[in-house]
């Protein structure tokens, strides 16, 4: 970031979210915990888009939900404009909620089928007593227009729309309160290929027009590269690498980021057939019994002895590029291409 004196809009410090595993029907006993998010820290500057990527189960959605206080974190701080959200009273939090919204993954499940589109978008405006009657209707129509839908659709129901149009309704609802920060949780992964670009372009446009700050959660790395300014890569509840996008995509430093990048197919047969792929062996370990040492050591092609016992910390490799790996990025070990099925 060039503005040294600028304060981050969102700051996450050592965030931990554990889900207890209980046994017994009546007398519930805690027998363990799923460590969905296990001590992550990052910050997002105003107007910045942070991409959050990782495979299913790595804790990226949980992080997003915790950020807008849909899940209470087990430990850690979430600072929004310098205020710790976890310590606010319910009433204070309710007021603050206007400033951060969410766009959900499933455009079918996230809209109430019994409400008209107008009611869905008007609901947040009514909750905060911002408008009613004719002015409210005008605001809703403006929002529909803003996301590229016909304002006359106001009395229609969600089932009358296609997936892409529904996602636009979800975006209009998120924009209604003029939030400063929006968490987009896999906003395009449920959509068809030709529609994905429409929604990505819309988000890009809205972001610029309203100076929005976004947390863009996705597993589609190409989409993340398109929309983000900085990208964080998560693996099993930890951030393994966080860097400005150009640096991350052109010079990925963590072995997991490298493997993830190489696994994404590129839609060009000439490039794709020549690429050297790092195929990781095995599956992601269980978040209940997380491996000791580096979480990635069981699948890492560059694993060393200390990786098995000592957990690496997030270190600054280059300006703004943070990597959590014992392995020094300067040495170039040849990548073991695993073909042992």
């Amino acid at each position, binding site marked *: 970031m060039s503005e040294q004196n600028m304060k981050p809009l969102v700051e996450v410090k050592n965030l931990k979210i554990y889900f207890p595993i209980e046994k017994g029907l009546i007398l519930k006993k805690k027998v363990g915990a799923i460590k969905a998010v296990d001590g992550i820290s990052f910050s997002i500057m105003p107007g910045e888009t942070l991409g959050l990527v990782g495979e299913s189960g790595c804790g990226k959605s949980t992080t997003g939900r915790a950020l807008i206080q849909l899940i209470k974190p087990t430990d850690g701080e979430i600072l929004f404009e310098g205020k710790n959200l976890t310590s606010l009273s319910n009433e204070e939090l309710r007021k603050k909620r206007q400033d951060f919204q969410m766009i959900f993954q499933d455009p079918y499940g996230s809209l109430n089928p019994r409400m008209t589109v107008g009611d869905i978008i008007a609901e947040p405006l009514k909750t905060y007593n911002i408008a009613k009657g004719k002015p409210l209707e005008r605001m809703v129509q403006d929002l529909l227009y803003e996301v590229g839908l016909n304002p006359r659709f106001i009395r229609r129901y969600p089932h009358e729309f296609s997936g892409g149009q529904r996602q636009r309704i979800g975006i209009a609802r998120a924009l209604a309160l003029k939030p400063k920060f929006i968490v987009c949780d896999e906003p395009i992964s449920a959509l068809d290929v030709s529609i994905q670009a429409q929604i990505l372009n819309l988000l890009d446009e809205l972001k610029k027009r309203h100076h929005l700050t976004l947390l863009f959660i996705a597993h589609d790395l*190409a989409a993340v590269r398109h929309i983000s300014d900085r990208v964080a890569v998560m693996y099993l509840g930890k951030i393994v690498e966080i860097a400005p996008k150009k640096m991350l995509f052109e010079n990925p430093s963590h072995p997991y980021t490298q493997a993830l990048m190489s696994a994404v*197919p590129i*839609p060009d047969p000439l490039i794709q057939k020549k690429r050297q*792929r790092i195929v990781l062996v095995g599956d992601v370990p269980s978040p209940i019994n997380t491996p000791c040492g580096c979480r990635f050591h069981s699948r890492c092609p560059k694993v060393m002895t200390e990786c098995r016992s000592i957990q690496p910390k997030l270190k600054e490799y280059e300006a703004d590029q943070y990597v959590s790996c014992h392995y020094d990025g300067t040495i170039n070990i040849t990548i073991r291409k695993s073909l042992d099925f």
Partner: protein
Amino acid sequence: MTLLKVENLHVSFHTPDGTFRAVNGVSFTLQQGATLGIVGESGSGKSITSLSLMQLVPCPPGSIDAGTALYNGIDLLSLPEEKIAKLRGNDIAMIFQDPMTSLNPFLKISRQLTETLEAHQDISSSEALQRSIDMLELVGIPEARKRIHDYPHQFSGGMRQRVMIAMSLLCKPKLLIADEPTTALDVTIQAQILELIQKLREELGTTVILITHDLGVVAGTCDHVAVMYAGKIVEYGKTEDIFAHPRHPYTKGLLASLPRLDAEKEQLTSIPGQPPDMSKPLQGCPFAPRCQYALEKCCKLFPDTFSFEEEHYSLCWKANEL
């Protein structure tokens, strides 16, 4: 050698809301040992095409209205049930999209694997078990001898998809239809599965039809690509030709709308509009309402087939100018 020749396939579904013409005259030929990628959006008819080859389209409400599918000279579409049942899982096998629901949760993996073998081949149960274990090892399941007695829920998503692949390959099929085999999986697991299909194809000489919506997957694995839109193959050709010189505006639009991992794009050129409603009769080119090159003629007349390089064709009036 031609293994499969599909001609003028029409499939429709009769529902209370009207008749949906899912497949509108699909034709393609598949050479032995080749890999064909069928790409298209949801509702384009790509899955229905493959299901109808195995007579797996539920009738009613579905019905195969016209067409032939010659597999080694036999028409798959008109084969009686007991004969097609012999081919299914034996000569022609299928991998389904969802590894979570395509395995029976009540049966052990061993039972589900040996069932296929025992149904098609005259072998003892111990021999069937041994061959199942060998196949699980081939697809990369560690400790296959022990794991084969587990239930599906004890496997992860990627592992279950491997089990599905093992099951489909047990009888050494000549034709493998993989319907979105990696869509439900993470990218690192997707890479494992695609590499596995590739390796098995080389070792066993299996012919593969890969159905997907991911153009990246196609680019890396297929020799030929068929692009489907509104129940028709609108463009067909060698993978290199399709990606280098797309001759249909839909293919061109899809390629332009994809964000790239290896390059920065200022803005994505999206295809406006929605896919057509398949219950309404189509007039002219189904892509015309979304097409930036559309002529007046496109809305009235369905385009002819225009041929280009070797095997490459496109159904578009302006194909020559693209």
